[in-house]
């Protein structure tokens, strides 16, 4: 019964709306949709793109004595910045080829020097920075002398303490991973100043050499 009704209905429609008319309407609708997407894609293509500051940074140092002598291959310093709660997580990977333990000789442990903007002037505060060693020790910022271009100079024996700001691991064939956590947004602690803007400078020293990266914006809102 229903089948007959439907067939009848279609026949009536077919008489009222010939197939050529239907096709014209269908093609017109398709064209309208297609033109809409033309406009949409064109708008997406031509609208001014927003600048994107990456939160992953990779610096590369050739194995040339005046550039770096830390490894016998190209040295990579890869950094990731991420805001986690009220802290800034910084992971620094460096493909150093040996772990230098200060107990093995009269030298400093390998270390990461990391300098933030502590006073809010959007510059790395080159007078104070974090000294984070490969054997998970540190000193209070400002308690040691250093230059970004040259690294740390410690004239006298200054006591270090276990670091609560970082852990460092070394894996043969891969190098160091410094996993650091720093307070931001006015959450200074006895161990750390709070970071006021997204400017950072980095240095890395091992017994064989030193490299540094000039201050740059790392693109994480720390306020």
């Amino acid at each position, binding site marked *: 019964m229903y089948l007959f009704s439907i067939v009848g209905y279609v026949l009536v429609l077919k008489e009222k709306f010939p197939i*050529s*008319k239907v*096709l*014209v309407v269908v*093609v*017109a609708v*398709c*064209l309208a949709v*297609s*033109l809409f*997407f*033309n406009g949409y*894609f*064109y708008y*997406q*293509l031509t609208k001014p*793109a*927003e*600048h*994107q*500051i*990456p939160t*992953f*940074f*990779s*610096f*590369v*140092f*050739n194995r*040339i*004595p*005046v*550039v770096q002598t830390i490894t016998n291959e*190209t040295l990579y310093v890869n950094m990731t910045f991420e805001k986690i709660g009220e802290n800034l997580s910084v992971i620094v990977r460096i493909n150093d080829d040996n772990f230098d333990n200060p107990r093995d000789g009269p030298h400093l442990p390998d270390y990461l020097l990391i300098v933030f903007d502590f006073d809010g002037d*959007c*510059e*790395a505060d*080159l007078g104070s920075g974090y000294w984070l060693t490969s054997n998970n020790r540190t000193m209070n910022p400002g308690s040691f002398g250093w230059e*970004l271009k040259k690294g740390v100079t410690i004239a006298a024996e200054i006591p270090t303490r276990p670091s609560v700001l970082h852990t460092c691991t070394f894996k043969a064939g891969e190098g160091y991973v410094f996993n650091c956590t720093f307070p931001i947004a006015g959450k200074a602690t006895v161990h750390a100043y709070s970071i006021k803007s997204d*400017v950072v400078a980095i240095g890395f020293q091992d017994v064989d050499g030193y*490299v540094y*990266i*000039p*201050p*740059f*914006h790392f*693109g994480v809102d720390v306020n």
Partner: protein
Amino acid sequence: MRKVAFAVLVVCLVVSLFFNGYLYYQLTSKHSPTFFSFVFDSTMQKLVNGTLYLNLTFEVVEGNLTVKAEVNAESYNRYAALALQFDSDNNGTIDIRYWEEIDFGYFGPGDDLAFFLRPNNETRPATIEYWYWYPDGRIYTCSIFKGFYERPSQYHYCTYENGVYTFHFTHRRTHENPNLAIQGKLVRVLYGIVPFNGGALKGMSVYIPPFKFME
């Protein structure tokens, strides 16, 4: 009449679908520009009295790499220069030639592409007769006759407005001769006051070691 309308509509639809495909391809192959901002305070440079900002924006547009470099300056200086060198052969490093025994950096045939850009839209070829770039960032120029060594650039133009130089650099990403294309994602950068003949004075240049400008 209906047939004609139908034919016109079909043709329009085909053309529109073709453009959809083209625009979609362009959209999916478009990368968001990446932005890097380096900050050199007055202890790190003597180019300006306060802080020097070197902002770099990288974008791939229609198969070309564009670099916009903005840097603040106290006044226009004909001797200002922006230098860029890329990992143009995409081997994961910027190949830098250095003759250690006599402390000499130089360019050679087939090297990674390097560009020396002046604010007056002039440049000089990256060969040893014109300039050379040490691995640690120092640049030296060699010139006797300025007019002979510096020539109009086909890769960049530069504006100076409100105390800011803006260098606009464009170069193709692909070419049938791979030595003529910037294929890789690494760049090293120098900005400074570099004379026609010689190197920048101490503190009169800032250098950024090779870094990845794009994922």
